């Protein structure tokens, strides 16, 4: 029995091997040859891994784009042109609520990923819904803040500081908006087609996207709000 099992593993044929791929080139190599370590051993990675990796690269380039906005904000934060600065404009209680909402949505998004891994459709949908709703409340608060600032005459046209502020925070808000749309799309796809491999990959990418948004928000509330509102 154990000999047969060894043959089974070493040869890579039989139940787990895909037809026409006796050496399991497309499946991370044979089990007898050790594990592929990301250094080119063991043949091409599976589609799930290449998709996740590709999306990770996209997220990193998205973060690099954000770094441009952060750099602009850091350079222009003092250029208020006689207008209001961060200390007068920012309301930390609202920012704290926004931060809590986004952090909590990141958490529920992760719980959704766990439910997906357990192939539990109901809980995946519930956690996706909660994630989307939390994101939506976050967005409402942010739009409120923007409207209030513009109403006070502190719109993006007021000073270079405010242009940089609205560009940076607005860009993050735009990402959250896109994320909410994506969340709804994923719920609809799950509803109509269930846990297909392609949909699982998209869910993984959505989770990555949502967590990355939260990471950007950490930099944002620290550098823009907390440092800007400093005494």
């Amino acid at each position, binding site marked *: 029995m154990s000999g047969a099992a060894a043959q089974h593993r070493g040869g890579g044929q039989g139940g787990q091997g895909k037809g026409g791929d006796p050496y399991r080139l497309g499946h991370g190599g044979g089990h007898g040859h050790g594990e592929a370590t990301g250094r080119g051993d063991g043949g091409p990675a599976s589609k799930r*891994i290449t998709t996740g990796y590709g999306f990770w690269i996209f997220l990193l380039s998205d973060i690099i784009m954000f770094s441009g906005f952060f750099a602009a904000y850091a*350079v222009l934060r003092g250029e208020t042109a006689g207008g209001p600065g961060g200390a007068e404009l920012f309301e930390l209680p609202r920012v704290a609520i926004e931060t809590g909402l986004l952090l909590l949505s990141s958490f529920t998004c992760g719980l959704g*990923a766990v439910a997906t891994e357990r192939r539990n459709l109901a809980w995946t949908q519930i956690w996706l819904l909660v994630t989307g709703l939390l994101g939506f409340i976050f967005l409402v608060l942010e739009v409120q803040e923007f409207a209030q600032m513009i109403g006070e005459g502190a719109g993006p046209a007021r000073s270079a500081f405010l242009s940089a502020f609205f560009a940076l925070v607005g860009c993050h808000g735009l990402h959250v908006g896109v994320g909410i749309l994506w969340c709804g799309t994923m719920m609809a796809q799950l509803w109509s087609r269930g846990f297909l491999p392609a949909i699982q990959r998209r869910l993984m990418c959505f989770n990555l996207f949502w967590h990355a948004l939260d990471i950007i928000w950490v930099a944002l509330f620290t550098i823009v709000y907390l440092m800007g509102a400093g005494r």
Partner: protein
Amino acid sequence: MSEGKLERGERGERHDSAPGDEAASGQEFGGGVTGYVVGLLLALALTAGSFYMVSTDLVWGPAIPAALIVLAVAQMGIHLVFFLHITTGPDNTNNVLALAFGVLIVLLVVFGSMWIMDHLSHQLMPMGEMMKRMR
């Protein structure tokens, strides 16, 4: 070959990990629901620390920005490990290298811009002075 290893192997496609891949990190430290709970608690604590930092007189004023940045970097690390499942394991080499490159570019863009623009504004004449000389 241990049974555990066989188990992981037999589910297929477990040799490299995609970032955020629940299946790959489910059994590891920082995986599963426990990982998310731990991550949430740590992130909450760091966030609370950041907000407390600006509202209290406990910390010496000029040290606050540095402390805030330390807390933010720590929280980003928490997010990366517990939410995105970026670890230092061999199955994560690609992800970590991509991340390291991204961080390099981000630091170059942000600090490079601040450095250059700071020098520029030091060497530019103040606007009022320029107006005076142009008359």
